[in-house]
């Protein structure tokens, strides 16, 4: 039996500067326990894969409880745009959050996907980093536009919150310093 609960029993998530519990569950159409259903029940806390979202967009968008969408680093994120529109724009309606998976923390594709979602697709909602998320990477993740982080085992979310302050100055102007993304003491910006 595959455990479909994504979250742990203890608070392992950092969201907008607060330590909370991740209580989401993944709906995986490939999993036998979901056999015969195309979409998860209309309850809070469900996460779907990008392919489930693309295949059932209209049904998922009209639910009472919006779903999270889980994006793998090799997914084609143009699937988040309205079909056949050719525009790079995420529909806001019906999406609770978008999470991007880091299979290993050294796989940096998620940083660029986050930048594209924020600046090209106009996604202003919650952007979540999941997978191999370390105390040592949350600072970069936050500057690339993530505002929630499900920490890997052994990486205390409170320490991760402190690590957001590792660098108080920045060089790259198109990536906001953390004072602009989450509530933090404000540090001066480069130039």
């Amino acid at each position: 039996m595959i455990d479909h609960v994504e979250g742990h029993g203890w608070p392992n998530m950092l969201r907008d500067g607060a330590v909370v519990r991740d209580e989401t569950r993944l709906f995986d159409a490939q999993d036998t326990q979901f056999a015969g259903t195309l979409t998860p029940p209309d309850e809070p806390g469900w996460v779907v894969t990008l392919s489930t979202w693309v295949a059932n967009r209209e049904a998922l968008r009209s639910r009472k409880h919006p779903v999270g969408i889980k994006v793998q680093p090799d997914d084609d994120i143009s699937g988040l745009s309205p079909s056949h529109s050719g525009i790079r724009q995420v529909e806001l309606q019906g999406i609770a959050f978008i999470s991007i998976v880091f299979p290993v923390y050294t796989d940096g594709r998620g940083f660029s996907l986050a930048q594209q979602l924020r600046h090209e697709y106009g996604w202003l909602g919650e952007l979540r980093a999941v997978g191999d998320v370390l105390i040592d990477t949350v600072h970069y993740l936050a500057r690339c536009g993530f505002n929630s982080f499900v920490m890997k085992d052994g990486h205390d979310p409170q320490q991760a919150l402190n690590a957001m302050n590792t660098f108080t100055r920045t060089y790259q102007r198109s990536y906001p310093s953390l004072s602009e993304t989450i509530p933090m003491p404000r540090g001066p910006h480069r130039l």
Partner: protein
Amino acid sequence: MYLYDEIDQQLVEQRVVQFADQTRRFLGGQLTEDEFRTLRLQNGLYIQRHAPMLRVAIPYGMLNAEQLRMLAQVARRWDRGYGHLSTRQNIQFNWPRLEDVPSILAELATVQMHAIQTSGNCIRNTTTDHFAGIAPDEVVNPLVWCELIRQWSMLHPEFAFLPRKFKIAVSGALTDRAAVGVHDIGLQAVEQDGQVGFRVWVGGGMGRTPIVGKLINPFVAWPHLLTYLQATLRVYNLHGRRDNKYKARIKILVRDLTPAVFAEQVDQEWQRIKDGPDTILETHVSHIAARFTWPSYDPGAAEVDDPCEAYASTNPAFARWLRKNVHGHRVPGYAAVTLSLKKSGVPPGDITADQMDAVADLADRHGFGELRVSHEQNLIIADVRRDQLFQLWRELDVLGLATPNIGLLTNIISCPGGDFCSLANAVSIPVVSAIQERFEDLDHLFDIGDLDLNISGCINACGHHHVGHIGVLGVDKGGEEWYQVTIGGRQNGGAGAPGSDPAVRGGGAAIGRIIGPSFARDQIPDVIERLVNTYLARRDSEVERFVDVVDRLGIDVFKAAVYGAPLPSNAGVGGAQRPEARSD
């Protein structure tokens, strides 16, 4: 010399604190070996054959006397009294203890130095012409642009975990001394209609798959330099291969997509971010330019009679040094001087702590306290009055730093090889020594003329063997070390060379061709000698260099000379046993 502002200083200090914490967590068992590996690599720390190796950044090869004294102190206190200058214009210490590294970094930060991004799959230290800012053939001074790229690439939040390492080189002169053709991105600064901009080569590199870079944009105007780099890196970060580390460099992506398609994808990405917040403004450039100190040259220096010719006429040793180690300068009355770290019997690029201190004093007395590191692993005192050259030469000679071999066969570029590096298939330093001994006769060496001889202990090509006029590569065959020889490589074309860029005379790098089956270690000096003798017999004049003859005649005549008669070998048929490997 660029001087840190408060922000630069604070970032470096905060990195020291972060790394100290990471080291503490690793030693305390809170970070696993796997987690710590990449974090330490991003700060220049390898676990090597004997001990950790710490690589300290020397941004675009510029160094001042105070920093060199600090490096001497580090070498004495935490290492074994010496350092090794790398082909990326950095310096490496081979013997520090892991526990000491945070303290070393803290000391370095006090003189505006760090080890950030000197290894790992991130944007590495940007390199440039070692005569940047002083070269007589310079079109655009690349230093301010290098500093802009340094700042932009340092602790970059999006590009810290690329598919593979990423190296940028910038050239601003007619002769490309930065080897822009063999970098992930090579930038050639040019002027067009009175505006500075950059020709952009992408996907060059050495290593396992040597390729010369492709020109993907003939002119990116300076305000757009960083957004163009950002677009290029983003395409690579998203689409570069991550399934096979040997196919993960940008050159493979460019080759697989074709340069035209790659350029098109970069352009699409660029159009979305162009004119965005990372667009460079005049104020950014002037802010950085204002933080560079430039030597206050004595206008009277040009008026003084140059005594060098007189000294040279009576002193052949000085004459030789003057010919090979002293270089032209854009300011009349001044010269740049290369301090050769290629003395016979000393590993190429190695410098002792005492030499560092002495060189720092010489730089203070004779050169405004400024130094450069060349990718050929030598030190340069950049601004010396010509009427002080004789005095400087005498002092350098005492220090063993006046070997007159710059540009010549014994100025060998070499990686540390199997004696130190856990990646190497074969040793390189003993091969260097054997070649240097064979070509000890200076008259003969001068007669051979300009010849780049580069040696790498493995296919990672840290010794740049692919672009040596003669390249030697250590290979592993059934646990034995053997050496493959290439000829005809070059790091740039110069005027009129095949493949060189007619607009700027930049580019034109070429990858050497393998002459045949590999050799045992002790055969290498004989192989080099046969190659050289073939060249001497075939050149049309002393002006025609070794590499020119290879271009003109092809490699067959050289091949015939090397393989025609059996080579003597003490080792008989076999190569030497390769050293025990420990990988990182």
